[in-house]
């Protein structure tokens, strides 16, 4: 059974919302990175907002729902989420 994730990015100076649904089992490098990030346990809802930073949210059909502030992500982890949004 495939697992679908929804990745959303909101905030930033422009306040533009971006969203993309990702099939986590499609075997592409971008989703491999995303799967590894999910499995790592590093994605946890925490931290207060900072002016004009991006806010990422990852949900699935089950009970996954994490909101992470850009400044709380490592550069590599943030790049994985941005890649997922770009597709």
């Amino acid at each position: 059974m495939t697992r679908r994730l929804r990745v959303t990015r909101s905030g930033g100076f422009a306040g533009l919302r971006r969203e993309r649904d990702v099939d986590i089992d499609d075997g592409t490098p971008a989703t491999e990175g995303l799967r590894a990030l999910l499995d790592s346990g590093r994605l946890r809802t925490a931290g207060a907002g900072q002016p004009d930073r991006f806010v990422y949210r990852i949900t699935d059909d089950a009970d996954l729902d994490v909101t992470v502030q850009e400044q709380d992500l490592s550069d590599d982890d943030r790049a994985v989420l941005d890649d997922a949004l770009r597709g």
Partner: protein
Amino acid sequence: MWCTVVPPFLLERLGEAGSGRPAEAAQLTLEIDREQRARRRAGATGRPADDGDRGDREDRTDARRRIHDAEHAQRLPGELVRRENADASGDRAVDEAYFGLGATWRLYHEIFGRESLDDRRLPLVATVHFRRDYDNAMWNGEQMVFGDGDGELFNRFTIAIDIIGHELAHGVTQYTAGLEYQGQSGALNESMSDVFGSLVKQRHARESAGNADWLIGEGLFTDRVQGKALRSMKAPGTAYDDDVIGKDPQPATMDDYVETTEDNGGVHINSGIPNHAFYLAATATDGRAWERAGLIWYDVLTGGQVPPDCDFATFASLTVEAARARFDTDSDEATAVADAWRAVGVSG
């Protein structure tokens, strides 16, 4: 309180109408009126009227600006490429950041008597060329950071002087009211940045409140995007409407307040409501926005009365009180501010 019976624009037209006594009389009345207006403003602000920013590309200030180049990496602050009073670098983003920081510093210094963001002469540090295709600008608690944009939807974020003023205002808010970046207090934090960013732009263009376009981030979108700017304080919700990025989601009044968990509770969305209140207050009385409404908002932001979790209604009351304190209880300014918050549905 300052009152005129004949509107100044009408007197000007009378004065131009050729020779003869009525024109002379009108001319004299106009001069006296101008003097009284200047004196009245000086009384309210402690200085003579100000008609705009006098900086230019060769500007020299005491802002202690430092512009760095991240060279598309993400290490901050990056290489120092232009410091205060140094010649233009020739790099457009560097020189725009330098100039915008100067214009913002001058607004605070010359109009509000503020010594930099912290009122303690904090050097103004900015980094440009942050990462690749970075579609953002921000204040990270210590300095400004500007991306180059992706070139498809967004141009470089130094392109509009009000974006630079917006980011620096986040610094001022951090050092003063400390509005929490969540929900209504977060939307007020955002609105402070749009308000003071817009004042930097209007003062640089030497515009009166009535002539300004009240757009935020004009020129930031590439010509592939259907939109004038990122936000409109005059008409929130109308800045853009595009197939790819969608429509400007900002409400102008509380009827359309957006409840959301995204963007820290919609801080970039619901800021449209206090933004529009400021626009209404600033345009209800004539003159320059930074000379009246801007002073009132600044008094509130820095007055020590704003709680960190301030909601719109609390902020509205504080601006009405500040308008009465600075301009008289029954002044046009106090009435304009109270009317503005009623019009956006924040106060009854």
